[in-house]
């Protein structure tokens, strides 16, 4: 068994080395710890390693080793090198069969190249930067735990019930908890709890226009891909939330169909002011 493990480790190491040398300027995986035996590919191993260490993984996907690819790779390499204490980085050529698993996992075989992805420790893609990007954009990809949790849920196509309160007890946000236990909503909803006292979450809460100094708990509903669609007080009941969500699942212009003069049909106004208020069909 030991011999077999050794063989696997050697194979993984050689494959990783091959990836490293595949492109003249390819980025070496940084801060890699030992690859796990039996992992599908070096890229997948790198994801698992970064995740286990609570670090981000920046993945640089590329197809052809042309000038734009080399140029962006330089920026990627420099930026991720400066973020080595909080993120690992790896370069992935999408046509290399050994990278098929990660390419399939993220569905990037037909994506614009080069493409940089930032993957949070929880598996959420916190930034997808196609073709051209800057160091600043890569830095902004490192987000708070709350942001990453919301992004992950929405990438799994779930509605997020973001519960914000200083000290949450077992009875806090009872309506939200009951909703996630209801079999009609259990598969499509997820509670994410955020402490407004956490300074790391301040920017995230600001973007959602939530007062982080308030003592009152607040629940914000976020729907894929990242729309803030409703806000409730902490004590909102399950019935109130369900009623609002049912209302929201309809729209004044289902499918967004609008006429040239902003009407759905003669005499019927569509999306008044462009800010389409959800209404019953």
């Amino acid at each position: 068994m030991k011999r077999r493990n050794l063989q696997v480790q050697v194979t993984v190491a050689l494959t990783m080395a091959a990836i490293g040398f595949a492109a003249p300027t390819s980025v070496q995986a940084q801060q890699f710890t030992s690859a796990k035996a039996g992992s599908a590919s070096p890229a997948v191993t790198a994801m698992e390693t970064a995740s286990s260490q609570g670090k981000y993984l920046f993945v640089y996907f590329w197809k052809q080793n042309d000038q734009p690819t080399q140029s962006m790779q330089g920026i990627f390499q420099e930026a991720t090198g400066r973020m080595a204490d909080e993120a690992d980085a790896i370069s992935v050529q999408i046509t290399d069969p050994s990278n098929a698993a990660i390419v399939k996992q993220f569905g990037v075989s037909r994506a614009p190249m080069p493409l940089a992805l930032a993957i949070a420790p929880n598996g959420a893609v916190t930034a997808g930067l196609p073709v051209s990007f800057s160091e600043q954009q890569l830095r902004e990809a490192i987000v708070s735990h709350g942001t990453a949790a919301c992004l992950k849920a929405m990438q799994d196509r779930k509605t997020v019930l973001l519960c914000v309160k200083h000290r949450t007890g077992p009875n806090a946000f009872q309506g939200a908890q009951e909703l996630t236990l209801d079999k009609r909503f259990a598969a499509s909803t997820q509670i994410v709890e955020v402490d407004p006292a956490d300074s790391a979450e301040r920017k995230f809460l600001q973007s959602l226009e939530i007062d982080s100094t308030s003592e009152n708990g607040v629940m914000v509903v976020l729907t894929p891909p990242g729309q803030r669609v409703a806000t409730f007080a902490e004590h909102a009941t399950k019935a109130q939330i369900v009623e609002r969500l049912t209302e929201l699942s309809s729209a004044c212009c289902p499918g967004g169909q609008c006429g040239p003069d902003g009407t759905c049909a003669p005499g019927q106004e569509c999306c008044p002011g462009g800010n389409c208020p959800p209404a019953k069909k």
Partner: protein
Amino acid sequence: MNLQELVWRELFERKSQMITIFVGILLGITTVIAIKNITYYSEMAVAREMDSLGANVLVLPKSVTLEDYYSADMHNETIPEEYALRLTMSSLAGVDNLSPKLCVPVELEGREFTLTGILPKSEFQAKAAWGGAGIFSRPIGCGAIDMGAPAEPEDKKTLVRNRVIDDLEADQTLIGADTAAALGIEEGQSLELMGKQFSVVAVLPETGTVDDSRIFAHLHTVQDMSNREAVVSCIEIVGCCKEISAGLVDNVNKLLPDAKVVTVTQVVATQTKINGMMAQLSMIFVAIIVVIGGAGIANFMFANVYERRHEIGTLMSLGAESNLILRIFLLKALLLGFAGGVGGFVLGTTLAVTLGPRLANVPVLPMPVLALWAIGISVGTTLLASYFPARNAARLDPVTSFKEV
């Protein structure tokens, strides 16, 4: 002799004048009703067209000319499929939905059909949430809100309305209504396309567009079968109206400079303009009827009263009250207006139903509600125009009228 008989005799006393004024009212009302009827159905057709189009922005290869919106993707030019992902991952506000398509011709049972490759939402949906923390501060979209994974299986037939479906397996196909009828295919059966077996998951409802004669399959399957690379014929975008007017098309153009971006507005604008013109025209005719028709009727009535002042005087000297004289003339006007309104409605509707399909290229049906409209305008105009001559007649002094003899 009662009031009814008096009115009836009065009506036919000057037949030529009566017929002239009746024909005037009739033609005016006929024109208004015909225009209103055709305009209504034309607007309905545009609304239906918009509804069936779904998408309101098209991304096409630069060289493609847009003559027919429905068949805008039927050409040999292509754009890279990655454009769809660029749009998905961009921070453009107002893109509610998008659907990349690739069209290739296929032959089945000796007949040519169009095989259209479509990309289900599941292939790119998650990537819309790759925008990082910035996506939370974006404004809410205009379409139906995605509340996450639905509990019930998706109805694939919604493709014709929403232009995109959530999931489609590599070996699944959706068949347009005409194609299904021509090939005798039903849901659940299998179909061989270019040597590959597909299961028919849905026969789409009839739309009256070229979609009825299409066969839909997964985009990547169609690309593989037709030996194409990762390319598409067009990308349909369901955009929000406010953002379209706020420059969504320009922003898409900047993001995809090598593609042509057009809006459905450009395609249906002509039709909408014609509808607007017809609506204005019908209002002008209403004004003409009220002013010219009213003046004609008033003139006719004044002349009528003047010519028949002796008969009026005789009636009054025999004991007829002013009120009776007033009622005779107003009832006469009412009958004339009613007959003109009914006749105008019947003639206008007949014209609209027969000429509408030729002039506006839309089927036109009778609209009973316009009968009230026609009678209202006609009776209102005749009563208004006849009131003052009738009042003059009612105030006539019988002694003065006999003195003139």
